[in-house]
C-alpha cells in the first residue's frame, strides 16, 4: 500500500482582527485564530480516513485545504507524490486537483435550485472539457437514481436523493479521492444507511479513497479504516478503529467515547464531561486539553506534547500509556 495523501505540519491561521480603525480606538492588537495546528497524517490508497472532533476542532478547514479551497498558512499537502503548494508545473497541480472532489453536509444548500440535475452533475466536467454525452444518466444510475431524473430540478428530490445527486456530481470527473464533510449529518438514520452503503459500494467498485469528516462516532466506526481525533486544531490521537474504540489512549478520546450516547446504553449513568471547548483565539498553554483533563499535571500546562506511539496508536499526550 502506498500513501495517496500525505499531510505534513499542516497549519491554518485566520486573521480575525477587527478593522484597523477599531483596533486603534480600542487599543487592541491583531487577533489570530489557529484553526489547524501542525497536523500530520497519511491516507492510504483505497481506504477511508476519518477525522473526528467537536465543533470548531478544524475538521472542515483541513478538508478545505486538501481540495484547494483554502491555502495552508504552513505545511505541505502531498497527493500522489506531488506537493500542491510547492509544485512549479501548473499542469501537474491541475491534474492532481482534478482527482479530488468534495461533498458537503447540506444537500439542500449545495445544489443550485435553478439548474436541472443533468447540468448540476456535469458541471465539473464541463470546465475540464470532457465528454458529456449520457454522462449524467450513467452517474445517476450508479448512485441508484433513475436516468430520467436528469431532467428534474433539485426540489423534486428528498434529502437522501439530493445527497446522491451530490455524490454523482463528485463522481463526474472520475476522482480518486473524495473529501466528505459530514455527508450524512443532515439525514435520518434510514437515509443515512442508504448513503453510507452507497459510499461503501462506490469505494469498492471504483477504488476510491475517502477523507470522511464527521462528529458522529458510530458512523466513523462503521466506515473508517483509520481515525484521527482532533481537538482545537491539533491531532491528539490516531489509530485504527478497533484500537481507538477498545483502548482509547488520549484522555480526550476517552471523554468523547464516554459521552457519546449508545443505542444499547439503557439507563446508562455516567458523569458528563466537564467544561467546554476553550476560546480558540486564546487557547490554553501547553496541551490545550489540560483544563478539562482529569489527569493533567504541571508539564501539561507548560509544554505542548509531542506525538508518540503508544500501543497501536499515535498519541499527543504527556501521560498516556
Amino acid at each position, binding site marked *: 500500500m502506498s500513501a495517496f495523501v500525505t499531510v505534513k505540519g499542516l497549519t491554518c491561521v485566520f486573521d480575525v482582527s477587527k478593522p484597523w480603525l477599531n483596533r486603534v480606538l480600542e487599543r487592541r492588537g491583531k487577533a489570530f485564530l489557529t484553526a489547524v495546528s501542525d497536523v500530520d497524517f497519511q491516507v492510504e490508497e483505497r481506504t477511508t480516513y476519518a477525522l473526528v472532533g*467537536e465543533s470548531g476542532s478544524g475538521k472542515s478547514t483541513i478538508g478545505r485545504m486538501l481540495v484547494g479551497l483554502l491555502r495552508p498558512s504552513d505545511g505541505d499537502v502531498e497527493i500522489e507524490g506531488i506537493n500542491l503548494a510547492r509544485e512549479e508545473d501548473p499542469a501537474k497541480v491541475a491534474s492532481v486537483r482534478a482527482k479530488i472532489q468534495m461533498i458537503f453536509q447540506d444537500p439542500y444548500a449545495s445544489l443550485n435550485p435553478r439548474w436541472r440535475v443533468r447540468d448540476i452533475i456535469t458541471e465539473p466536467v464541463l470546465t475540464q472539457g470532457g465528454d458529456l454525452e449520457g454522462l449524467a444518466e450513467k452517474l445517476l444510475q450508479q448512485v441508484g437514481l433513475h436516468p430520467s431524473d436528469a431532467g428534474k430540478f433539485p426540489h423534486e428530490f428528498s434529502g437522501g436523493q439530493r445527497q446522491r445527486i451530490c455524490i454523482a456530481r463528485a463522481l463526474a470527473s472520475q476522482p480518486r479521492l473524495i473529501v466528505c464533510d459530514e455527508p450524512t449529518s443532515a439525514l435520518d438514520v434510514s*437515509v443515512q*444507511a442508504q448513503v453510507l452503503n452507497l459510499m461503501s459500494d462506490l469505494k469498492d467498485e471504483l477504488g476510491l479513497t475517502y477523507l470522511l469528516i464527521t462528529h458522529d462516532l458510530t458512523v466513523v466506526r*462503521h466506515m473508517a479504516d483509520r481515525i484521527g481525533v482532533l481537538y482545537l486544531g491539533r491531532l491528539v490521537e490516531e489509530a485504527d478503529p478497533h484500537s481507538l474504540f477498545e483502548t482509547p489512549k488520549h484522555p480526550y478520546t476517552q471523554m468523547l467515547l464516554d459521552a*457519546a*450516547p449508545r443505542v444499547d446504553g439503557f439507563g446508562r449513568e455516567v458523569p*458528563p*464531561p466537564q467544561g467546554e471547548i476553550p476560546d480558540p483565539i486564546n487557547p490554553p498553554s501547553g496541551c490545550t486539553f489540560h483544563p478539562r483533563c482529569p489527569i493533567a499535571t504541571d508539564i501539561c500546562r507548560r509544554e505542548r506534547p509531542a506525538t508518540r506511539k503508544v500501543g497501536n496508536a499515535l498519541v499527543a499526550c504527556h501521560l498516556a500509556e
Partner: protein
Amino acid sequence: MTDPVLSIRDLCVEIPTRTGVVKPVDGVSYDIAKGEILGVVGESGAGKSMAGNAIIGLLNRPAHISGGEIWLNGHRIDTLKGDRVRRLRGKEIGMVFQDPLTSLNPLLSIGDQLAETMMTHLPISRAEAHNRAIAALKEVGIPGAAERIGSYPHEFSGGMRQRVVIALALCAEPSLVIADEPTTALDVSVQAQIISLLKQLCRERGTAIMLITHDMGVIAEAADRVAVMYAGRLAELGPVRDVLTQPQHPYTHGLMASTPLAAQKQRRLHQIPGAMPRLDQMPEGCAFHPRCPHAQEKCRHAPLPATATAGGRAACWFPLLAEAAQ
C-alpha cells in the same frame, strides 16, 4: 397508579392545502407520567414536532387540531382559548427547542428574562425573582451564576444558551417539559451534559418530559418509554428497552437495523426500501405497507388497529415476534 401529567387521545392535526386537507398528526394517543421521560422518534416529517406543537398550542396557521383530546393534570387543555393558553404554556408547560436563540430575547439580559417569566407566573417580588433566577442558573450548571446574570444571550456559547433555555423553561416550575431536538445542534460532550441535566430535573422535581429526537442513542440512555411515529401515526409505543431491542413494528425494526451499531462492525447497513409517503399521497391501509417486507393483503386495505386495542405495542396487523426480530 396516579394520573398521568399529560394524556393525549386520538390527537389529529389538519392542514388545508391547495390539493386538499393533509393530516400530519393522525390519531395519536399517549400518556406521560410524573417524573417520566417519553422519547419520541421517527424519520423527518413523521409529525413529531407537529404533535409537540399541538400540545403547547403553538401550531402555525393554517395547521389546527382537528380532533382528539389533550389533558394536562386532569384538565382538558385543547379547548382553551387565547390568553388562557398562553398562561398555561408558560406556567405548566416548558419548552426547549433545537435553536436556543428562538426562545431567548436578544435584547434582555438572561437574569431579566428569568425574573420576568417567574413574576408572570408565580406570586413573588422582584428581589425574590432575582434570587431565584440565580438559583435557577446554578441548577442548570452555569458557572459563576451570580456574575453572569446580567449577561446577554449572545455572550454565551451554544451549550450554555441551551442551559439558559432550560432554566427558563423550568423557572415557573412546570409539570411538563417538551424538548424538541434539544441537543441536535450541540457537540457530543455538551449533549451529554444537557441530557444528564434533563434526567436530573426529571428525577429531582418529578417533571414529565417529552423528548423529541432522531438519535436512538439519546433515546436509549434517557427515555423510560418511547413512541415511534411514522407518517403522522404512532407505529409503536412501549418501554424503551423492549421497543429498541425487540421491536414489534417492522418500521421500528427497520430503523434500528439501519442504525450503525458501535459494538459490531456490520458490513452493510440495513436499508428500508423507499421513502415515507408524502402527506397528500398517503396509501390506504397501513401507511408503512409499501415499504414493509411482511405486508399482506390485509395491510393494504384494512384501517390500522389502534395500538391499545391491538393488545400489543405496535400498530401492526402482523407484529414481529421476539424471535423474528432478532
